[in-house]
Structure formats: C-alpha cells, structure tokens
C-alpha cells in the first residue's frame, strides 16, 4: 500500500508501473483520477487537510478493502495546497488479478475518500472564496458498501 498526501503532481505511468510489478502477478489495474473542473467563476481550488488523521483514515479504508477484495496493490495519492483548473487532485489505483475486484475496490475507496477522510476544498473566484459544501449524494453512495 502506498499512501501520499503531497503538494506535487503525480505521474500515472510511474504509479501504474510500480503496481504492475507486485506479486502475485497483476492482470488488471483500475485508476481513478480526480481533476479540478474548469469553470468561468473559479480561478483556483485550495485543499486543506488534517495531517496525521488523513493518512490514518486512508490506511484504515485501504486495509478494509484489502480484506474484502483480493487486491495485489493499492496506491492513493491526494494533493493539497492550491490547484488550478485541469490539475489532478487525487489518484486511487488498485491492482488485482481480475478486473471486478479492482473496479469495486477503487470505487469503494473513492466513496470513502469523499466522505470520511479529512480534506476540505475552498474555491477562489475573482472576488471571493468559498468552502465547498459536502454533497448528500456522496454520503448516500456509502450505503452500497454496507454488508449484512
């Protein structure tokens, strides 16, 4: 498991290469990339986080995913600081033998990253800044992962 909270961008080719060479042999890699949406009214996005808790929370969800699906490798990179439209925000990449486990675990990790891991986004427009509100639909997405 690789977990990074960083200001720098990430290199998808390099991250996938690293996942590919995990044992046992990888056949499928799913990578989710979140991007700052371009907009006429937003000039930048600033990401704040809770150092320490962020990494712990991510690790907790990755460990859970490792127990639930047969995964060979997981990489989570989340950027912080000031980002521009088109910039990468987050990478969740999961390697497995077959695609289904990789798809499910990536979606699971994104759903928990959106709702449980202490990051906050502030949008800066030309005149003022505002904190982005949490979306109810993100919270609702969690129910599909609840097991009996």
């Amino acid at each position, binding site marked *: 498991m690789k977990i990074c909270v960083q200001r720098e961008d990430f290199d998808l080719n390099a991250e996938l290469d690293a996942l590919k060479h995990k044992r046992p042999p990888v056949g499928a890699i799913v990578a989710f990339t*979140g991007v700052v949406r371009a907009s006429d009214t937003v000039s930048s996005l600033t*990401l*704040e*986080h*809770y150092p*320490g*808790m962020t990494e*712990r*929370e991510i690790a907790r969800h990755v460990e859970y995913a490792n127990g639930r699906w047969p995964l060979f490798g997981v990489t989570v990179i*989340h950027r912080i600081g000031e980002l521009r439209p088109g910039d990468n*925000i*987050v990478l969740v990449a999961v390697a497995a033998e077959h695609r289904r486990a990789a798809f499910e675990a990536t979606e699971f990790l*994104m759903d928990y*990253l*959106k*709702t*449980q*891991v*202490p*990051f*906050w*986004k*502030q949008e800066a427009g030309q005149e003022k800044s505002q*904190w*982005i*509100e*949490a979306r109810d639909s*993100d919270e609702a997405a969690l129910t599909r992962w609840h097991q009996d």
Partner: protein
Amino acid sequence: MTVLYFAWVRQRLGTGEEQIELPPEIGTVRELAEHLQSRGGAFADVFSEPKRLRAAINQEHAAWDASLQTATEVAFFPPVTGG
C-alpha cells in the same frame, strides 16, 4: 488537551489550534462544544449549529456523545469534501 479547528471552522474562529485545560464536568464532545460556545463571539456562532460540524478524538471520527476520557487531541471541522 489539544483542540484543532479546520476549514471554515478554523477561519471563523481565527485559530487552528489551542491548548485547553478541561474542566472536570466536561465528559463528552457535546459538552466540550457547549463549553466552547459559552465563550461567546465567533465561538458562540460556530458552535450554535452542531449539525454543521463533525468531530474527531485522537484522529478518529467521534460521535457527539463520545467520551473524552482518553482524549489528548480533539478536532472540530465541517463535513469533509476531499477526493
């Protein structure tokens, strides 16, 4: 005990971190929030709407009625918006 504030909570309170000597009658997150609210000013504002806030104890999500018995670090923040 260390108390941390993030995002608009931090901004509106004008501080991200403070050390608090916990009065003995405060046993839960809710009681700590009410204690902070009683300071008035920006604290009264921010803590008047607990539904808009989340809390963590020792870097783990905590419910509003969680005990502070083992707490060395408590944080208040808005619902998260990362990813």
